[in-house]
C-alpha cells in the first residue's frame, strides 16, 4: 500500500481525509433524520434567553396539553388547528382523566403575538376549571437554577 513518491525512503505527507468525510456524512445524515422527528406540533418563535423559568420535563410528554399560538389568528393543539370557540371543548376532553395536580395547560406562544390573543386562549382554558398554566420559554444557557 505504500505510495512511493520520488525516493524509496520518503514518507507520504498527505493527510488522509476519508475517515473525516465519513464521520461528517454520518453526522449530516443523522441530523437530517432526527431534526424533523424531534419537533412536536407546530414551530413557534418562543421567548428566548430567559433567566428564571423552571424546568418541567412534563412539557415534552405526549400526554400533556400544549396550546401553540404561532400568530394572532391560529391556535394549535399538537398539529391540529382549533378555532378559539372549540379550543375549550378540546382541552376539556384531553383533561378529563387528569388528577388535580396535573391539570396544567402549557402555552407556547410566539413573541410577536399580541398579549390579547394569549389572554383569549387563557380565558378559554380557565373556563374548563383550570387555574394553572405553563408559559413555555427557553432558558438562557448557564443561568443558575432557581430554588423552587
Amino acid at each position: 500500500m505504500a505510495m512511493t513518491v520520488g525516493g524509496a525512503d520518503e514518507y507520504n505527507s498527505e493527510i488522509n481525509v476519508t475517515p473525516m468525510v465519513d464521520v461528517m456524512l454520518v453526522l449530516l445524515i443523522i441530523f437530517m433524520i432526527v431534526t424533523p422527528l424531534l419537533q412536536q406540533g407546530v414551530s413557534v418563535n418562543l421567548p428566548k434567553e430567559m433567566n428564571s423559568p423552571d424546568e418541567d420535563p412534563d412539557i415534552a410528554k405526549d400526554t400533556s396539553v400544549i396550546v401553540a399560538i404561532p400568530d394572532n389568528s391560529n391556535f394549535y393543539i399538537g398539529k391540529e388547528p382549533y378555532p378559539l370557540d372549540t379550543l375549550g371543548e378540546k382541552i376539556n376532553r384531553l383533561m378529563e382523566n387528569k388528577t388535580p395536580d396535573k391539570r396544567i395547560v402549557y402555552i407556547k406562544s410566539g413573541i410577536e403575538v399580541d398579549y390579547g390573543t394569549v389572554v383569549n386562549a387563557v380565558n378559554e382554558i380557565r373556563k374548563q376549571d383550570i387555574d394553572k398554566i405553563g408559559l413555555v420559554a427557553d432558558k438562557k444557557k448557564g443561568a443558575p437554577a432557581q430554588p423552587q
Partner: protein
Amino acid sequence: MGMSSGGSKGATPNINVTPLIDVLLVLLIIFMVITPSKPTRFEAKVPAEPKPDQQQADIKPNPLTLVVTVNKSDSKIFLNKEKELGDISDTKPLSDELSRLFKEREANGSFREGTNEVEKTVFIKSPRSVKYGDVVKIIDAVKLAGASPVGLQIDDLSE
C-alpha cells in the same frame, strides 16, 4: 486472500475498531448536545372566571398583593400603579424593587393570612396590544425577584 495459519507469513486476525469508535464517539457527542435542552416554563396562575351570582363585595382585597402594570403608550412598568420602575427594555429596576420588598416583608413578618409564609403573590396586568414577548420578559423579571405565585390578570384589560 487465503489465510495461512501457522506459517511464518500468517496474518494476525485483528479487527480494526477505529472507525467503530469514531462513529460511536460522534453518536455520544450528539446525545450530549441534545439532552441538556430540557424544556422550561413559567408557571402562572389565572383567577377563576367570575361567577354571575358571586357577590363582588364579599371578596376582601388583599393589601399585600402586588400588581405590575404596563403602560401601552410608553412601555413603562408600574408597581401598584404608583411607582414607576423602568420600561420593558430594562426590567432590572422592577426585579430589584420586588426583591427589596420581599426582604422587607420577611423582616417585618408580613405573612400571608393564616400562614407563616411571606406574601409573594404578584399579579401582572398588561394591555392586550402589548407583544407577548414583552409580557414574558416582565414575568421573567418578577420571577427572578422570587415572586410566587405569579398571576395573570385576564379580565378588564385595556386595548
